[in-house]
């Protein structure tokens, strides 16, 4: 994101307007904190809940981390196989296409039965959510390596699949892997709330949302946690983009932007 300096603060104005509008509507139009608490009340709730917020975020990030690490380390080798070897693709693609449309939430009973009420069970649901986007984007990257680059590799001494994958296909596929991972992170984060809903522990943003606040009809707490869910995801995405796009994919600049 390289905006000219003049436009750098552009996003601030609409954001401020939206928040003011929220405050105003909640206060003067709705007038019922059980339906829509005011923005200022929500901010204050975050302050009240400060003892809980940090452990909840960390627990959710733990679940997220488990799921994403699993998804990435399972999807990448599979993507290399499916993208590079036509036969592997033909053999495995039907299985993938049957499993892919099953919503991650449908795996919850399976996760509980297989793994029990543990952090890993929550991680498993996130794994299901993140796995397919990472896999599909990554194998597309490996599959679409231009023939001329592969042949250039061969002519310059890359004999055998191992070298070609390492020196030609993998670097070529890296942007697709990054995109897939980013999409996978998005889907995975959406699964966090559901994954914690069934009580794998006593902490977690999703856990808190459903087990504590919802039943107490604490709308201000609920919305506070919703905002935190959004903000944490935003930060994670920004950090990822910074490291991957600015550092790893410098060479892409001319092509994309």
């Amino acid at each position: 994101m390289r905006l000219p300096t003049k436009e750098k603060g552009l996003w601030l104005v609409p954001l401020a307007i939206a928040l003011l509008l929220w405050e105003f509507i909640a206060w003067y139009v709705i007038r019922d904190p059980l339906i829509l608490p005011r923005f200022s009340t929500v901010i204050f709730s975050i302050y009240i809940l400060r003892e809980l917020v940090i452990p909840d975020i960390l627990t959710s990030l733990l679940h997220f981390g488990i799921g994403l690490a699993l998804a990435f380390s399972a999807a990448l080798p599979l993507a290399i196989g499916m993208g590079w070897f036509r036969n592997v693709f033909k053999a495995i693609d039907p299985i993938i296409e049957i499993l892919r449309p099953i919503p991650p939430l449908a795996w919850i009973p399976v996760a509980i039965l297989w793994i029990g009420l543990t952090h890993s069970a929550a991680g498993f649901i996130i794994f299901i959510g993140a796995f397919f986007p990472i896999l599909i984007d990554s194998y597309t990257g490996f599959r679409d390596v231009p023939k001329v680059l592969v042949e250039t590799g061969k002519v310059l001494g890359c004999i055998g699949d191992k070298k070609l994958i390492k020196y030609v296909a993998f670097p070529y596929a890296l942007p697709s892997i990054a995109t897939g991972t980013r999409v996978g992170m998005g889907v995975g984060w959406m699964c966090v709330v559901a994954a914690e809903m069934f009580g794998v522990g006593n902490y977690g943003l999703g856990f808190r949302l459903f087990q504590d606040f919802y039943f107490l009809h604490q709308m201000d707490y609920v919305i506070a946690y919703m905002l935190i869910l959004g903000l944490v995801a935003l930060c994670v995405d920004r950090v990822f983009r910074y490291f991957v796009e600015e550092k790893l994919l410098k060479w892409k600049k001319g092509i994309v932007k």
Partner: protein
Amino acid sequence: MNHKLELRNVTKTFNTEGGEMEALEDINLEVKPNEFLCIIGPSGCGKTTLLRLIAGLDYPNSGEIILDGKEVIGPSPDRGMVFQEFSLFPWRTVLKNVEFGLKIRGMKDKARREIAEKYIELVGLREFENCYPYELSGGMKQRVAIARALATEPAILLMDEPFGSVDAQTRNILQEELLEIWKRTKKTVLFVTHSVDEAVYLADRVAVMSARPGCLVKCLGIDIPRPRKRTSMEVNEFREKLLMLLSLERSKACIKP
């Protein structure tokens, strides 16, 4: 046996949806060491196919290709190739692109950097060695591709219309540079083009091909001393001769069913 490269009765057919397509028919060709051979012919006559066979990227259906007394069985860095389309690795800087073949060979950082810089200097891109391909113009990209092909010190250089996508002036400059490099490095060069001017300016010998099926019609030695003047009488005579040959082939091809 003082031939660098020898093609004996080489044929190549492609299996396409419409049946068998005879791309090359009974090609016989001998190339001397340090010779600059241009291959000229109409689009689709099999020039690229011929170079790919010599590079070892594809296999003839019959006949044999013999390089330095040994039959060609696969790609190898002793035959450098410059492809018709852009073939730089976009994720590598100019320097890293040129170093590629040496890296694959397992050469140490410092040694390969030294060699790469020498060839970058040779193609006149010293200031651009840390640029990514997207920052280069088409002609510059092809020069990098040439430097990269030279860096592994191949005995023979296969060039497939390397200047096809650059403007006339740049093309002239690149031709001069190439002759300079050729003189300095004493390579055997097979240079595909469909420009008569280019062939007459560059070649020791021009091989004329005709289409459907692709075959060698005639080899024409050009014994004008270098540097040649593009507009001199002798050059024009050869140009005339070549054009006659080519148009004769074209009219023959039209009569064929």
